[in-house]
Every structure is written in C-alpha cells, then in structure tokens.
C-alpha cells in the first residue's frame, strides 16, 4: 500500500504524471511546510518537534525530487521498481556513445563562445527530443501499470536523458574544460 509518506505524488495531492506545473507544485509545497515546518513547533514538546522534523524533511525531499523533470521521471519509474541510477550499468547503444564522445571532443576543442553556443543548442535539441520521447513513453508506462511492456523503452530513454543532462552541465560550456 502506498501512503502519502511513501509516494511523493500523493504527498502533494498530484496524479502520477510528468505534467506538473512548477508554480502549482511550489504552492502546495509551501502550504505543506507552513503546516509541518519545525518552526511551527518551536514551543512544542520535544517529541512533537521530532515529529515535525521528520515530516518537514520528507516534504523537502519530495519537493526537490519532483521539482526537476529528470529526477521526477526517475522517481516516477522507481515507484514501479525500475532503477535508472544503477552506476554499474554502462551498456548504451554504440551509436549513442559515439555521438557523446564526438560532442565531448568538440567541446574540449571549442575555443570561442560562438562554437560553444552552437554545440550547446545542438546538444540541447537532442536532449529535448529524448525528453519528449521519454515523457510520452512514461505516460504509456504509467497507464499500463507495472505489468506493461514499456519498461525497457522507458529505461533506455531515461538512461539517454541522464547522459545528455550530464553533458549539458554549465561547466562544460564555460570554456575552461580540463583536458
């Protein structure tokens, strides 16, 4: 049985979906914290304060997880027992890895802002394509429940998303990459 404390979507009173409005999520987050934050219990007994501490920690973690699309997606599939953060799994399609390698090399060799900006928009659009595909696959995956066939497809797309997100890290575009 999933309770509100185990399911971050339930905690915020939201459906299990990728389509979450950040403003709405933030508003619900603030409302929950207004109720449970330890500061509301400063004069309460030590046990009440301890309880508030646990509640508030949970709510903070839930908000941080759902706030960003990638961690939201990873969390969503984890509710169905799919773990996309396994660091031992480095098996990716060869063409995908080659493309990654090419981008990394191009970034290291880029010595002006124009080249970097062009690369950034290229990688960013590749990322957006993966995000779009992953979001659609996730919707089907959730609709089918844990019994569905989509789990491998979702897994592969999320793994690509994770790689591309890492490549998008601001330090890769700062122009002082360590060679």
């Amino acid at each position, binding site marked *: 049985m999933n309770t509100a*404390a185990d399911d971050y979507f339930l905690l915020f009173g939201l459906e299990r979906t990728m389509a979450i409005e950040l403003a709405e999520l933030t508003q619900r987050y603030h409302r929950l*914290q207004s109720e449970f934050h330890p500061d509301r219990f*400063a004069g309460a007994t030590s046990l009440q304060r*301890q309880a508030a501490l646990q509640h508030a920690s949970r709510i903070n*973690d839930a908000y941080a997880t759902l706030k960003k699309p990638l961690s939201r997606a990873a969390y969503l599939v984890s509710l169905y027992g799919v773990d996309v953060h396994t660091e031992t799994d480095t098996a990716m399609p060869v063409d995908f890895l080659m493309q990654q390698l090419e981008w990394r090399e191009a970034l290291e060799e880029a010595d002006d802002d124009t080249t970097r900006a062009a690369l950034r928009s290229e990688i960013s659009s590749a990322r957006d394509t993966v995000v779009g595909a992953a979001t659609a696959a996730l919707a089907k995956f959730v609709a089918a429940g844990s019994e569905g066939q989509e789990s491998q497809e979702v897994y592969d797309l999320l793994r690509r998303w994770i790689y591309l997100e890492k490549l998008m890290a601001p330090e890769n575009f700062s122009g002082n990459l360590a060679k």
Partner: protein
Amino acid sequence: MALVQLTEPQEPTAQQRRFAVGIDLGTTNSLVATAAAVDNDRPEVLPTATGARMLPSAVYYQQDGACIVGAAALAKRQQEPHQVITSVKRLMGRSAEDIGSDYHYHYRAEEGMVKIITAAGDKSPVQVSADILSTLRAQALAASGEAEVAGAVITVPAYFDDAQRQATKDAARLAGLPVLRLLNEPTAAAVAYGLDNAADGLYIVYDLGGGTFDVSLLRLSASVFEVLATGGDTALGGDDYDRLIAQNVAQKVLKSLPAATLSDADWLRLTAAARVAKEALTTAATATVVAELEAGVCECEISREEFNAWTQALTVRTIACCRQVLADAEVSATEVNGVVLVGGATRMVSVRAAVADYFAQQLYDHINPDEVVALGAAAQADVLIGNHRGESWLLLDITPLSLGLETMGGLVEKVIYRNTTIPTEKHQEFTTHRDGQTAMRIHVVQGERERVADCRSLATFTLSDIPPLAAGLARIRVGFQVDADGLLSVTATEKTTGVSAGIQVKPSYGLSEEEFANMLQAAYTHAHDDLQARRLQEAVNESEELLQILDKALADADSAHLLSAAERARIAAGLARLREALTQAQLAEINAAKEHLQQVSAEFAGRRMNADIQRAIAGKKIDDIGQ
C-alpha cells in the same frame, strides 16, 4: 518519533507575551533585540547599561576567574593585549592549525578545538562566547525589566559548518539561554527587510561583517522566504581590510624600521587606527592613520585610491562568491530584484561600488546594517515563541556545505548536497566486511572536494551492537539528519533485526559530551546548582511526556488498526518498564527505559506519521475543491 499528531498549527497559548530575544553574536560586536517588549511587533535593539546599542565582542579574564565583557574589556587591551580576547567567533569549532598566526593572544594547540590561554586558565572559545551571551542576556533583562529570557534566536553566518554551529549552540546552553533556533544571518536580514518591503522576487543578501562574509540568494513569495543558494567565506571580513591598511601603512611609513620590531601592542594600536581611517574614508576622500607606537608617533595620510588598491583583492573575492551563488541557483544577475546590504563593512565605498556594478540593481540599506541581523532574529524569535499576532511567515533555509562519508582510498561519497533545503534526512545502507563483525566506524566530513584530506572532518561515528552475522549479511541503515538549525545527527538501525545500533560520536573539532558536561558542571558549581538533580528532572520530564503521548496515541481509536497484538504488547511492556524506572528515580535506568520505549514504538510512530500526512492532504483536497 512521530507519535504526536501535527494537525493543528501551533496557536499562541500564553495570555501575556513571553520575552524572546534575537541575538547577533558577531565577530567584532554583538547585539540583542526583541519584538516582545513593544506593542506593535516591531523589533528593537536593547542597549547596554551605558546606552550603547552594540556590545564589543571582547572578553577580559581576571585571575580570580571573573570576567569583564564589552567596552570595559577592550579598554584593558592597551595594557594587556594578550589577556583581552576578541574575534573569538573565528575560533569557534576551529583547531590551532586552522587559525594561523594572525591572532594576538596565546592559545594551546591541542587536538580538536583550540584553547585560549588566559589569566583564569585555559578557555575554550565556547566558554568565551558563553560569557558574551550571558552578558547580552543580563543586558536584555536590564533594558526590558523582564525577569527571564524565555527563548533566543541566535544568528550564525550562513556559511558556518556543523562544528561552528554546534559550538555556538553549546555556548548558548552553557550560558543557560534556551535556544529557539540558530538562524542564518542573511536570512535574518531578509526577514527584517521583508517586514518592511514585501515585494515578491529574488533578492541577494550581501553580508560583510567584521570577520565573516556571507551571500545568499532568496526568493520571497507570499510570506515565504526561501533560500535558493548560499556561499561565503568564514574568514573574510572588515577586520581583514583593517589589517591590510595597517600592514601597508607600516611598510610605507616605517621603512626604516623592520616591521618585525613592532610589538603586539603596536600592531593592535595600528590596526585600531587603520579602522578609524577606514571609517573616515566612507565620507572623505582622504584620511589619516594616527597611532602612538613604542618607537614614536606614526602618522600617515591615505587616499581612497590607495585604500582601494590595497584591499581590492578582498572585495573581488566577495564578488566571486556572489557569482558562484548565482551559478548554483542557475540565476543570472539581471534576474535579481534587489540587493540587501548587511554588516558594518558594507559602508565602505569601494564595496558598495563593486556590488552595485556587479548586480546593477537597487541596493537596500535603509535599515542600519549593524542592526538588521539582530532585528530580524528578534522578529523570528517572537514568531517562534508564539507571540506574533496576525499572519506569520515561513523560512526555508538550506545547508551551505555538502555532507559526505569517507570511503575506500580516502575519497568522499556525498550523502547530502550543499544547497539542500533543511531539515533533510538521507539514508545510506552499510554492511559488514568480516564474519561476526559487531562494530564499524563512519567518518563524516563536510565540504565540496573529492578527497577526505581536502574536506573538513566533522565527526567519527562508531556503530556498535551490530548482531554478529556472516560478512555482508548485516544491513545497517544509517540516517543522516540535518535539522532546521543546520546541525547533523546520525542514527543507525540494523535492518534484519530492527535493532538500533549504538552510536558513539567523536566530534573532530567540537566538544565531546564529556567535555561539555565538565564545562556545564563548572558553570553550575559557580552558580551553586546541582547538575545531577537537574539532569534527573529533565529525564523525568521527558519520560512523563513520552508516557502521556503514547497513552494518548494507544487510546486513539483511529490508530488501533496500526498495531499488531504483538507490537502492542511490546509497547505495553516498555511503558511498564519506564513507569517502574520513574518510581526508582535512577537516572541511568530512566534513560535506558526511555530509549527502549522509543525504540519499540518507533514503527508505530512512523505509521502515525503517514496517517498524519494523509489527513493533512485530505484536508488540502477539500480546499482545492472549494477553490
């Protein structure tokens, strides 16, 4: 222990307002303020006996153990420079190695936190800070006519690490001040400004104090102050500007004399004169450093240009911190709606120009930058103690530094990342490496670097009582909790047996429980109080509270289905044991029985918490329908 249902927001219960204070425990000066003494909730500073609004953070110890704090202590400095302790904030949670040679008083280089050698014996920075806090409390009571301080919010630099925060909290406990909260200084300042100017948006708080620099980015929206990122340098402040002026003046004027021949007292006089000149430069284009040194009078005119050239590197460091904070929050300087200036050092023309230039935004400085932190802390104290009428606000702060664990090869595995909203709790699972292993050590560090040697050691936790199993079978779930004060605590449970593992904490730079107990004992001996009796009373109070709450929870019809018969029986046995222990009035057994009861009821507490949140959400959904 979530046995208590947290459905009702706390209501102010007291008919009369309780006296709560906000304390800015500063490197150079300290302040105390309250919002409880006035009718309109507006915080105000409580002055010293001589009417000064700031108490110099200086302590002078006499041989008989008595101490003088504040301006009177500073006055002793000319004669006995080594006996007057200043800038003790820089020593909190720090070792002799960390401090370097900039300090004029003598300290003892021991393992862990440094000890200062005084006429009244060796003093921990925690004790010195406690003496400042005691003076502030007396000052607050005298100025307000109140009998006792019911609670205090004490501010710390946002960039303080766990050891520095713990040392500050220990100092308050030693001074007998009930701490409602440790509050980050920039957040306190934001509260003070937020009360005045409640426009929603992104704000930078640029806080350059006497000894520390902090910068925080906050989002203010509908009475919620949400810190998005924070950065800073706990060893950079206005004092460093003074020191650079003194060094440059010494070079310029005393070329004939090698600088090394200046005595400690000379350097103090020169630095004090440098500070006067620095302050004069905020309104004049030139100023003169005048100091009477042992070799004669030193007089040197300096211009703003010279001053800027000497100190530019310091200001540049603060702007670099600002840039990092914006990058962390993925916000550009143009998105910032305003910059709040905090700390006396932000009066420097060069600093203001650099900040205005970088952010190109309105600078907020209409609240006295020396007082704004104490005023914000006082407002928060008033809310926390339950005095505040009308709509209150919510502060969501973050942890400034990542927490990590030492792994193989001296590397760090991060558990909680910096800029994570607090409170927060993360779990990590460990296993044993040898058959029958019953104990293990976990080394917790704080910092951003990858190697343990480059991070700051916080503490070593030794887990014991692990059930002896084959290697790799025991599964120990370790919880790392950072509370709203930014303080770390660690819990451990063996998952297969569900038994809490024992934890012994050895703080790297803080006080051990034993050291703290000794200091507390000394403080009580001084006050002719019985520590043992007090501890017993505390244990009895906590036990009675636990019994009462459990009785209530067990009687609650809504939670009857949350417990199996066996669980219910275990809790009942635990209740009986604690009741029996209370009749015997033995401290050790009461504590053991209390811990045991908390252990056997922990699962129940967790289920109650789930039910609790569920109920809160159900309530929310009804609200949503109504909208």
